[in-house]
């Protein structure tokens, strides 16, 4: 049985690319994405599943990357903010965040956007109240919340509730 300090092989499939890496079993998916793969768009705000800044998609579901270990995601399809719309931010949710000013300092923004994409895909963007509820796992201390709701509503093509 491998000890906590012995690195083990893990396959991380991130943004359509396969990465064969060696990580210790105690390494979180977040630290593996940021430190091992160098994809720093995913942010660490609390490292304990409270702020949502590290939200990524695993097999299409949004999760907090700090609250799961890299070894637990072996072989799964992971999408980070870098894999969403390319360098020009062409994904409709990214464009909506810029157009509706759904960001301020920008630190929580990648997590907000990953969460928003999933929120829409889940069918949880049917009204402003629903968006507010289902986006409440992502903290924004600048408090760009009204503009984030505007952006999610616009991207979802939802009429204002």
């Amino acid at each position, binding site marked *: 049985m491998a000890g906590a300090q012995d690195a083990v092989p893990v396959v991380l499939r991130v943004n359509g690319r396969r990465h064969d890496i060696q990580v210790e079993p105690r390494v979180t998916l977040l630290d593996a994405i940021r430190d091992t793969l160098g994809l*720093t768009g995913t942010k660490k705000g609390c490292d304990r599943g409270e702020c949502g800044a590290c939200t990524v998609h695993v097999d299409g579901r949004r999760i907090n990357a700090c609250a799961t270990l890299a070894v637990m995601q072996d072989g799964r399809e992971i999408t980070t903010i870098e894999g969403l719309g390319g*360098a020009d931010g062409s994904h409709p949710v990214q464009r909506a965040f810029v157009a509706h000013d759904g960001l301020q300092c920008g*630190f929580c923004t990648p997590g907000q956007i990953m969460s928003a994409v999933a929120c829409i895909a889940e069918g949880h963007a049917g009204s402003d109240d629903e968006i507010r509820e289902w986006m409440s796992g992502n903290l*924004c201390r600048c408090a760009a919340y009204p503009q984030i709701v505007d952006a999610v509503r616009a991207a979802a093509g939802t009429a204002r509730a």
Partner: protein
Amino acid sequence: MNVPDARNRADGVAKVTGAARFAADVPVDGLRHAVLVTATVPAGRVARLETAAAEGAPGVVAVLTAANAPRLALAGDGYAGRLPLQDDRVCYEGEPIAVVVADRLERARAAARLVRAEYVVEPAATDLDAVLDAAYAPTPTPRWGPADTSVGDVDAGLDRAAVVVRRRYTTEARHHCAIEPSATLAEWRDGRLTLHDATQGVFNVRTVIAAALGLAPDRVRVRCEYTGGAFGGKGYVWPHQLIAAMTATTLGGAVRLVLTRAQTFTGNGYQPPTRQAVTLGADADGRLLAVRHESVSATATYGEYPEMAANCSRVVYASPAIETRNRVAPVATILPTPMRAPHEGAGMFALESAMDELAYELGLDPLELRLRNHAETDPTTGQPFSSKELLACYAEGARRFGWSGRPMPVRSLRAGDELVGWGVASAIGSTFRFPAGARVRVGVDGGVVVEAGCQEIGAGTYTVLPQLAAEALGCPPEQVTLRLGDTALPETGVTAGSSTTMSVGSAVRSAALELAAKLAAMVDGRADPATLRLAGAELTVKNGPPTTVRLADLLASHGVDGVAAEARWAPGPQRHSIHAFGAVFADVAVDELLGSVRVRRLVGVYSAGRIVNPLTARAQLTGGLIWGLGQTLMERSVHDARLGRYVSKNLSGYLLPVSADVPELNVGFVEEHDPHASAIGARGIGVLGAVGVGAAIANAVHHATGVRLRDLPITAEALCCGES
């Protein structure tokens, strides 16, 4: 948005793609990771520190403690910590006692847990109420004003008053909780130190680090292109920044130190609790005859930070007699520090609650009471206001809110099972301005680059400063890019105290005007820069018939490949009282059985001089309103007086507003241009929105329920159990 100047964020794409690099994101070769070990007691001595197990753990490069860390020199006024790893003293729970450096983060973290400390614990007070007898008069930095002021005879005014209100109010300790934890990447190579630091001011970091490490400032470069929220917590320099720097200079190479979320609660200051007393005396018509505002706030045992909560009463209302007094009392915590909104944020809760209480004593509409006491000149200094449209704020806010339909009696509005109440408060923001430099240059392709070493902390600096340069050059703002956050750029003050658009914006405008003058002169030797238009790579001047030249031709004819201008701006002698103002209206629903308060609407209308970009400015104000909502209903760093520590050093125990908490927000600005505050006509707006919200909501709760709550945050217990 179709409003002119409402430009979308220039850094929007960088931020929505994850390309924007924050301090902890910067890649570097040979990186080592540093993790702090912090004291678990609030006061005493470290009697024994066992580091051998950590030193022997896999991947560990070094463990620095007071026993082997380099000696530091005094760090100066920009530093707010105690010098770290210099002695065996512990002055607060969470104070760093060691730093563990390893090749990988998980190894450094694991090894840090192996460090064992034994303490000689000394008695320590961490509860402000336990040390009020030890309160003393602070020596504030001059820009915050004196600890005490007095005009007129307050006691005589109170003797003549028809109505006197004497009340006590409290606010609790709060934390900044920027979503980006403070982080420093320090790299020491070839006798030069480079820091990538999460900060509100790279120059302040350089000054402190260079002084503490005994390095010439030109051997220290500090960079920060994006700051992931700050709110005051990254304004001063704190121990972790010095530790990262000294670790790098000791070991060589690159070291990254990122505070854990828990460490941010003891690592970069907090908003101290306040205990305030407000006394108001008014004649039968509600005109103030006397105002006395006293406040005691917590400071650290090792240093002094006064929360100047009484300051607001110096300015807000006209009264022939006003006394204000700020005191501090020492507790065993890290030093408190400014936090959105410092001073007025706590003070206006007390003053504006007391004004509402006075209105009810008089049976006078609370808004009418404020109108009757409107100050036409600064009541303490006698200076004229630089510009003040507060009356227009009241009028427009009342119109948007529908205030004229408000019945005076409490418990007179209902919605279903809930009681409804409406409250109002004034808002005021101090004006802080710092000397600033800026450089603007244009190349053959027409691309304009503005350079100024200030920060982008979420306010829209990358967007707004180019707008000011574009205005002076007669070009579209998209043609202008800004470089900031680097000590290699022209020096500015800290991006704090709502100062940057005013201060750096004035310098940018001045440099851009000078560049326009240079370009105009190059065209025909005399052209007026005001007639200059830059469109792409073509320049047009219009002194009579318009002349259009290709920039490439113009520059080639002068044998240059670019033209630059640099300017500095500094605030002149202050002949005016300069403040931003506003009026805040709150609509709340209260469930009496549950003791729950739900804010349904907030309306804020503001007088803040020229608004350069209505889009980013609106976000500053709505963000501020939500901060006020957090202050009023959620935020409190709960503290265990026996253990001398915060009990919830995380984001689930420390409640922050989330999206579902946010009500309908309606924000407006009064059109205004303030030539005395800045060269661009603007005043500061960064903290303004967070002011007055607490009182507006508490006053609305009183209107709904008849219960007057004088302690923030408002809790269900307090609401159910009656007046505080």
